[in-house]
């Protein structure tokens, strides 16, 4: 088995004949903070949707811990330990913060079908264990005082934190973050970077899309740059930053806007 947690091999995804991801390959090492950057519409989120099973790529392989996982249902991908957040926040907005985070405990809970009707001592123990874990996460993300507040009533920055806490509740091996700093102010962004580092230090591999270049360059250990669905550059931040191809892609895209 290779020392890569996740390998993307020659993956292509088309929408109505238009190429969204073009023969893309990349490898994520265990314990890495891996960044994906590129202009808007480059296919970054599409790639995340392919990894998490929401889309099935037409070509290529997505390999998780040595096994091919493309075409597997999203809920099974989560069971494998790949959890994500969304670029456009997708919380259960009418439900409380604690209940939102509890959804991450779903795959860790071992309740049986009849426990929906009859409660047993072992089920109650399971329930308590999972709520306590939710409590820990609310403490870690400083959300405890909002425990019973509907998630949809909270600020953007808090909602991003809830999404991350929810994904971490499932104790993922790989945490996929889709633009975690979008909409955050400077202070919140600095705090987010610290949080991401802490999470990684607990043994979670991070794969993230981010537009905030300062954050990406200081946080990520390895970066892949995508434009028009294809990889145009990869390497450590210092390399990617100075790569003429990358500079051109970004300046070029600015002119388009």
């Amino acid at each position, binding site marked *: 088995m290779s020392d890569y947690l996740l390998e993307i091999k020659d993956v292509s995804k088309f929408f109505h004949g238009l190429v969204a991801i073009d023969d893309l390959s990349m490898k994520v090492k265990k314990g890495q903070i891996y960044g994906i950057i590129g202009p808007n519409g480059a296919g970054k989120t599409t790639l995340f949707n392919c990894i998490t099973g929401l889309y099935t790529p037409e070509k290529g392989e997505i390999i998780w811990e040595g096994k091919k996982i493309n075409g597997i249902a999203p809920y099974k991908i989560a069971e494998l330990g790949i959890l994500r957040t969304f670029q456009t926040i997708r919380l259960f907005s009418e439900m409380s913060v604690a209940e939102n985070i509890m*959804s991450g405990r779903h795959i860790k809970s071992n309740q049986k079908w009849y*426990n929906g009707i009859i409660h047993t001592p072992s089920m109650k123990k399971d329930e308590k264990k999972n709520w306590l874990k939710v*409590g820990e996460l609310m403490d870690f993300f400083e959300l405890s005082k909002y*425990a019973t507040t509907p998630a949809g009533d909270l600020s953007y920055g808090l909602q991003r934190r809830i999404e991350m806490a929810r994904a971490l509740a499932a104790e993922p091996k790989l945490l996929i973050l889709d633009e975690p700093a979008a909409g955050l102010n400077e202070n919140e962004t600095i705090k987010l970077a610290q949080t991401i580092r802490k999470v990684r230090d607990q043994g979670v591999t991070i794969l993230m899309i981010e537009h905030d270049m300062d954050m990406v360059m200081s946080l990520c250990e390895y970066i892949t740059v995508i434009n028009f669905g294809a990889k145009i550059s990869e390497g450590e931040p210092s390399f990617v930053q100075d790569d003429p191809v990358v500079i051109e892609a970004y300046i070029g895209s600015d002119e388009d806007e």
Partner: protein
Amino acid sequence: MRQSYKIAIVFLIVMGFFPLFSNSSWLAVGTTFLIYSVVAFSQDIILGRAGAFQMGHALFFGLGAYATAILNVHFGVPIIYTFIPAILIPLIMAIVLAGPIIHLKGDYLLVATIGFNIIFIQVIQNDVFGLTGGPNGIFGIDVVRIFGVEFMSQTAIYYMSFILLTLTLLIMRNLDASKYGRAMFYINKDDIAAQSMGINVRYYKLYAFALGSAIAGAAGSMFAIQYSAVSPEAFNVVQSIMFFTIVLVGGSASLPGVLIGTFVMFVLPEIFREFATARYLVFGLAMILTMILRPRGIWPVKFGNIPNYLKKDTK
């Protein structure tokens, strides 16, 4: 304890003493109310919690009623034993029927479930295998006998219905505080997010259909006992629309809401019986106004039902 449970307990206490203060005709109305409340809660599991637009629920209510009627009248099975098939047959049928269409969203599922209900009515009206009695239905259903004791008074039937509703409320409470109940809410609120958290949408929706239909079947059996007869019009699409409406007017996933919905849709028409058909004008308008003024129902559900040890004071 959560407010809605307190209300449910107060409601049960009031209903428990109701027979002491009412005559037999009101007792019959009360019994029907209890039975329809059970059906409304079973609809709520599917519609209010799992968010599946089931508009053929009377089919499963009817399956339970007909199971009891057919087994008792045609095969002489004692009523008490017909309870089990009256629960299992709707449960199995729910999985068989809903299985292939469970992936349908909103309005598509709604139309498909109406289709099932229409076919069901067609089948029982045509007296299949000479068992369903055609348009007239089945008469002469026996009374409940346990150890040779007959439970045939309206009061006895009332209390059997009361026990059924109490059990249903217990199930609702247990469901709320379980992985299965929460999974339904997650699917309902955002199925993409739910899947990404590892929730098998299809499985939990089918679970909701199976559980809801089994409970509706039990209520159907009780309904057959109450009227000692069953006939097709009690289980047609109009009834399904009523159950659907109760949940939305009362408040999806809200225990007090569903009770209020049932009261408004079934008991109020009885109270205002003297106003004849004019009352339906009022009800139609009330339904429309509720949806405009209180789109989440008269008594909307309140989330945030979490253990007390997680409720910390604001720092």
